[in-house]
């Protein structure tokens, strides 16, 4: 019956579309007609009611004016006559609550009331100030609520040409309610009146009026006021919401111009549009009938057309289920019979093709079975190989773990051994320094220089080994800070300029204003290694240390005019103990650890490192550094700018190793310093107690006995002297590198006497 559905959809679609267009036109027409008619009826009703209220107001004015214009000032009539006239007016008009005569001097001359004594003395001032009126014109005040619940309005009438007085009446506005209450509009329509300030003045439900309600928020009142202000007439129709709920309403308003009151007649929109809804429902009913008819016609047509098609469908279903003998015999004599014959031919062809296909499938199945056996055989072989590989991988993993354990043990051994080896090396270095300065003979000096050179070479070897060991042992923790790069350059220049010049090389530093953020000590060591390397491998020309801008950052460059590096070795130079073959004795001195340290430090600090070189022309090493700002002028370091003699300085030496303490103390004395020493802070303080002078400098080992440290000793001496005395910590301990204090200088053992002297000189100069 899908065909019926399709026919039904087409037929009903056309029918519904046509009918919907017709219905839409009809509904729109009905809507407009009803809206216009409702608007006209409402406006008529509002106008009639408004006119009735105006008629009542006219009557009040006329009657009061008739009394007010009597010749009161001519001496013919007196106040008793006027009072009687007022009493008569009140008796005739229940809406008049009070009447009074106000003289030219604003005094009350006559007063008549329904509740008070008819004496001027009983009169209270009117609720609203009455203006001076010309002739016998009328004036209405704004309605007010007596006893907070009963609406009243003040009406004033001028005394006309003959009497210069004003008659003021207080009117009970209930007469408006009487007019409103008599009318009922539609089944749910209602009539009400608001005053010029939109307060409810009359309503079929008196309780609403007694509440003194402000209806300014109702949209129909706002729209009516706005529309009346724009149009010349005094009747308008607007949309709004019900006084009781959010139900939409159509409302027409008539304005009583003399008072500004609005008479509203309103109906719920549903009531106004009820004929439209009825029309719409009728149209929908007709539409449903048309659709039903379309459906019935569709079923009849579809059945007639569908029978042979369904027979073909059933045969096709049998064919699909494997019954290749399925055939149709229609005999309709039309195109569908031709279709049936074609179906039969197709079924025959399909049967033949099916037989051929079965034969091919059998052959192919045999071939696939053979291929499957071969694949199973190969799978077994692969499985065997896989097991062997798994065994080998397990073996490899075990070997790797053993290698890692051995490497870690090596690192721990080197870290411990280097500390223990540093102590005697430090002592030897200091003692050689003393010896050199005490020897006078040329031969002896040469010998000591050679010893010193050997010691320095050994120091470099130790330092390099230590650095590598610490980096491998993962013992280095970057201490990141901001510092001017120029200070680092100055430190490097101070350490290597002399060495370069001694070799006849030009050493130049390009000033920089960059302020970078990284670990100062690690970067200084890396750049120092690069510069030292450059000096070692350069025979002519010079070395340049500077920076370049690149990609918003800064790159430190170390350029030399040395022997250069063959391109084949550019990757290998950063490996441990790698050295380019050289006949030069100096170049052969290195261990090949410097660049390896630079590489590992760069990785640790996440700094890009790059090298380019041309053999015979020189090399360029680059280290990228993060820049956080720029100083106004290049900030020069202070390390090499100060050169004060240390002679005469009062130095405190603290070291728990007697040999080290002796060597340091002897060296300082040799440089002309006054020295006191001790194996602890307390011993040094005891010795200091014999002196009146405060010490100029403290030189202390880091790790002292009994768990004390050089930092504690420095603090003790400073506290006792009550001065911030410059201090140097000398230690072989790796952990000392982590001290985060800027009021001490840390030097590593073994220490070159020249380095110690230079540092002492610098600190004393700064102090």
């Amino acid at each position, binding site marked *: 019956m899908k065909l019926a559905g399709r026919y039904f959809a087409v037929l009903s679609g056309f029918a519904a579309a046509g009918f919907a267009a017709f219905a839409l036109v009809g509904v729109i027409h009905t809507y407009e007609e009803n809206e216009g008619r409702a608007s006209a009826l409402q406006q008529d009703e509002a106008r009639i009611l408004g006119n009735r209220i105006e008629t009542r107001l006219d009557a009040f004015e006329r009657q009061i004016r008739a009394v007010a214009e009597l010749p009161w000032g001519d001496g013919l009539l007196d106040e008793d006559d006027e009072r*009687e006239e007022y*009493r*008569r007016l*009140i*008796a005739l008009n*229940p809406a008049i609550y009070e009447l009074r005569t106000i003289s030219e001097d604003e005094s009350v001359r006559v007063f008549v*009331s*329904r*509740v*008070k*004594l*008819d*004496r001027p*003395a*009983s009169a209270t001032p009117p609720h609203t100030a009455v203006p001076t009126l010309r002739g016998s014109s009328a004036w209405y005040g704004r309605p007010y*609520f007596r*006893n*907070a*619940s*009963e609406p009243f309005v003040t009406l004033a009438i001028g005394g006309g040409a003959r009497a210069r007085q004003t008659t003021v009446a207080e009117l*009970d506005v*209930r007469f408006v309610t009487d007019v409103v209450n008599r009318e009922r509009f539609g089944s*749910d329509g209602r009539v009400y009146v608001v005053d010029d300030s939109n307060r409810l003045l009359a309503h079929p*439900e*008196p*309780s*609403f009026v*007694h*509440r*003194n*309600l402000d209806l300014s928020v109702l949209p129909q009142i706002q729209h009516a006021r706005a529309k009346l202000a724009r149009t010349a007439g005094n009747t308008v129709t607007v949309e709004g919401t*019900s*006084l*009781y*709920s959010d*139900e939409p309403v159509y409302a027409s308003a008539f304005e009583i111009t003399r008072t500004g009151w609005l008479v509203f007649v309103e109906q719920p929109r549903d009531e106004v549009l009820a004929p439209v809804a009825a029309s719409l429902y009728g149209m929908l009913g007709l539409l449903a009938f048309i659709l039903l008819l379309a459906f019935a016609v569709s079923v009849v047509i579809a059945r007639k057309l569908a029978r042979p098609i369904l027979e073909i469908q059933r045969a096709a279903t049998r064919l699909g289920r494997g019954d290749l003998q399925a055939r149709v015999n229609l005999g309709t004599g039309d195109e569908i019979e031709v279709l049936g014959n074609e179906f039969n031919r197709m079924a025959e062809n399909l049967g033949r093709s099916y037989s051929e296909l079965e034969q091919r499938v059998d052959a192919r199945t045999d071939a696939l079975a053979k291929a499957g056996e071969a694949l199973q055989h190969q799978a077994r072989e692969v499985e065997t190989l896989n097991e062997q590989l798994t065994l080998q991988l397990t073996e490899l993993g075990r070997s790797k773990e053993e290698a890692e354990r051995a490497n870690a043990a090596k690192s721990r051994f080197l870290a411990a051994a280097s500390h223990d080896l540093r102590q005697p090396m430090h002592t030897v270095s200091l003692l050689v320094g003393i010896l050199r300065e005490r020897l006078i003979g040329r031969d002896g000096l040469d010998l000591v220089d050679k010893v010193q050179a050997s010691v320095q070479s050994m120091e470099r070897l130790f330092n390099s080994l230590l650095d590598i060991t610490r980096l491998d042992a993962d013992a280095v923790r970057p201490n990141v800070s901001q510092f001017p790069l120029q200070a680092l350059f100055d430190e490097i220049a101070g350490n290597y300029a002399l060495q370069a010049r001694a070799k006849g090389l030009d050493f130049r530093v390009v000033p920089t204003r960059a302020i970078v953020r990284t670990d100062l000590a690690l970067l200084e060591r890396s750049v120092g290694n690069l510069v030292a390397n450059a000096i070692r491998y350069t025979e002519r020309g010079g070395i340049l240390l500077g920076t370049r801008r690149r990609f918003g950052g800064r790159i430190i460059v170390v350029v030399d005019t040395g022997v250069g590096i063959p391109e084949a070795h550019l990757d290998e130079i950063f490996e441990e103990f790698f050295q380019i073959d050289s006949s030069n004795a100096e170049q052969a001195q290195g261990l090949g650890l410097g660049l390896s340290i630079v590489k590992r430090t760069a990785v640790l600090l996440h700094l890009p490192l790059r090298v380019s070189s041309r053999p015979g022309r020189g090399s360029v090493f680059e280290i990228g550094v993060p820049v956080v700002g720029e100083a106004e002028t290049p900030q020069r370091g202070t390390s090499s700018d100060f050169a004060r003699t240390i002679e005469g300085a009062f130095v405190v030496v603290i070291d728990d190793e007697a040999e080290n303490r002796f060597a340091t103390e002897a060296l300082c004395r040799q440089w002309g310093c006054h020295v006191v020493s001790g194996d602890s802070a307390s011993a040094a303080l005891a010795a200091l107690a014999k002196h009146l002078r405060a010490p100029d400098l403290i030189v202390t080992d880091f790790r002292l006995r009994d768990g004390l440290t050089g930092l504690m000793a420095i603090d003790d001496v400073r506290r006792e002297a009550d001065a911030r005395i410059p201090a140097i910590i000398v230690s072989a301990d790796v952990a000392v590198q982590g001290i985060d204090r800027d009021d001490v200088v840390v030097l590593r053992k073994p220490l070159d006497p020249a380095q110690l002297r230079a540092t002492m000189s610098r600190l004393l100069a700064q102090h």
Partner: protein
Amino acid sequence: MLAACAAFVLAACSVPEGGGSDAGAASKAVRRVVYFVASDKDRETGMRDFREFTRAVQRAGIDTKDVSLELLNVVGPGAEPARRALAELARRPPDVLVATSQFCLEAVLHTPMHVPILFLSHPDPVALGDVVSLARPGVDRTGFTFFSPVTAKHLETLHDGFPSVRRVGAVVDAYLMGAKWFTDDVHLAEASLGLEVTMFAAGNVAALRRVLATAQAARMDAWYVPVSEITSDDPDQVIALMHALNKPIVYSRVSAVLKGGTIAYEARLEDPFGIWARQLRLILAGVSAASIPVEQPQSFEIAVNLDGSREHRALRPSKAILKRATRIAGAPEN
């Protein structure tokens, strides 16, 4: 539409004493409204008023299928019968209770039963403390009052009707004797109109009979009979006793003139049962009685009885009052 009215009023007014009952749910259940009358003499008056009230309820459009109107008509001397009846009523309180007199209202207020009340009062309900204000009662009760401060106007009417009158006797009860608004108005009238008013306290007919027999009463030129306990309980006997004096008498109820009284000035309340019915409709729709204004007299009427005016010249009213009269009873004998 009624529910819509209620919703609007609820939205427009605050509900101080939990008056916001569920109007939608309430409209489905049958609501009990009890009309409470207490009298020490007869049941007929209460039954007659109840029938009037029932008709007014129907006129107001209240569907009586949803509302059960019940009469609680208590007859007996003193407060005890009313107290017992109300105690029984409190066991199954109604949804609304109509207290048909000041006595009924006070009896209900002394019963532990919290229901919306419709009441009437002759004195000022604000001065009595029964409501906070007429426009917004503030407590869960509303109704209407006959009170209007027209005491001076009564005496002025007497003075205008009978200008020669100077000494006026006033028949009052204990409440009026102590009501400042009443005595102030009396003094104002004395000062403005040149009258000399003497108060005669009489709580019942026997007492009235006694005071009228006194020599001081005999010296009075005219009498003033405002609404009091005695005029409410025995109006006919009071009128008969006063009529026998053959002196001008001003009443505060037109009905007294229709029964033979001389003259009356009344602040009238139109259709009091209709007022109750309208207020009941709002309460049943869910509006709190505390926010429904207490209604007060809206119109004023001067009534003159001409019976006996020819026989007794002293009872012939002035032309001025006749011209102002809104109702003339009787006819002068030719």
